[in-house]
């Protein structure tokens, strides 16, 4: 029988190894798996590469993981938010590597990893500093850059409800990167507001089918 629901942070994060690439959902705090990221400090994995739209805020969630010295590199589109002090400090001290890429390119690169695409051509960043060093090619008279898939070892995502099979639905704009990251990692762990049995979600409205999800942890009161 399939039951992807787990009951502790230990179970949820078991097996995440040093050196992993972690895809962390969220746009600002909306959809960010804050509690999973904090539990990852206790779990102990080091030397992580984190893919996340932003680079943490305050001293919680991703910022806490970074403050604990676990993150070697951040791949993001927009590391500046109100209160993004940790990334500022670590970067200034040369203690973290920062790779900034266009938001849509990060998202599409993860989707490519999910879809078995070896590479794709996009106009975004062509002719700019962020396109430098990338292979280019013209299609229909317009310059494109070649982008490669961006795959995660682990995805940590936040959803609203998860069922026994790992099917997920989300809440409003907290959906953001969750569905794509869930598809793009070898091990996908979702924190949710509530868990239900298989068959309780509307099959027409499931956003992330359970095939993409490995573990579902209910984190009460996280909203």
């Amino acid at each position, binding site marked *: *029988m399939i039951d992807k629901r787990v009951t502790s942070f230990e179970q949820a994060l078991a097996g995440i190894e040093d050196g992993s690439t972690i895809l962390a959902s969220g746009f600002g705090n909306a959809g960010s798996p804050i509690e999973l990221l904090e539990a990852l400090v206790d779990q102990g994995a080091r030397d992580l590469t984190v893919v996340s739209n932003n680079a943490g805020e305050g001293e919680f969630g991703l910022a806490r993981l970074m403050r604990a010295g676990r993150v070697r590199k951040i791949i993001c589109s927009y590391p500046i938010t109100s209160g993004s002090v940790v990334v500022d400090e670590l970067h200034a001290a040369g203690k973290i590597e920062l790779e900034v890429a266009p938001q849509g390119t990060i998202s599409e690169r993860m989707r490519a990893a999910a*879809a078995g*695409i070896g590479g794709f051509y996009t106009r975004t960043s062509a002719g700019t500093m962020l396109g430098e060093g990338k292979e280019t090619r013209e299609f229909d008279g317009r310059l494109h850059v070649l982008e490669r898939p961006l795959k995660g070892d682990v995805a940590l995502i936040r959803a609203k409800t998860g069922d026994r*099979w790992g099917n997920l639905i989300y809440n409003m704009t907290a959906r953001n990167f969750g569905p794509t990251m869930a*598809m793009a990692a070898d091990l996908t762990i979702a924190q949710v507001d509530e868990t239900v049995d*298989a*068959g309780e979600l509307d*099959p027409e409205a499931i956003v992330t089918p*359970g095939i993409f999800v490995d573990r579902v942890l209910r984190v009460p009161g996280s909203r």
Partner: protein
Amino acid sequence: MGLDRNQIAWRIAQDIADGSYVNLGIGMPELVADFIPEGREIVFHSENGLLGMGPKPPKDQEDPDLMNAGKKPVTLVPGGAYFHHTDSFLMIRGGHLDLCVLGAYQISETGDLANWATNNDKRLPAVGGAMDLAAGTPRVIAMTTHCARDGAPKLLGECTFPLTAAGVVDRVYTDLAVVDVTPDGFVAREIIDGMSLAELQDRTGAPLAAADDLGILKAPALGETAG
């Protein structure tokens, strides 16, 4: 003397682990779903946008909007989900299924699969999702009779029919044997009772080794009407 279609399907079903995500190709592979051992929860994927495919419904509950890849009426089990075609093929091409079971015209000793066209088709060419499944799925199982009706072997050094994908087949289940495709070529894992490796080799178009733990391929008697 060999297994019938249902028995091959039964044998394949025994090897599908609980919790697997599985695509069954159109035709003979569809029978596999009928023989999943009690207690295992297998999630069947259908290329037309469905995870959690259940058995066919009673006649009066058929819905033309709920079909499988073979365009036959099916059901959705609790936990199932609908999605669009590109997401469905993302699952296939991105390697998210655990395994697929495909029919085969020919399988080469390097795992090439030919299952979509012959060299003298009278019908129009038609590939469907076969190339996507064969190229994308981590574990590709071929289900076929060991030889064609005219006795020609289907396990070969090289396929002579157009390929579906190169180097993808992991294991072949036939009426006579279970054969792994390994870096060293074909390795028989099970042969039906009463047939020697040499006799199986005679029916195979490429060198065939025996697994260290070579066993007997057997299946219970099954009504031909199952499935």
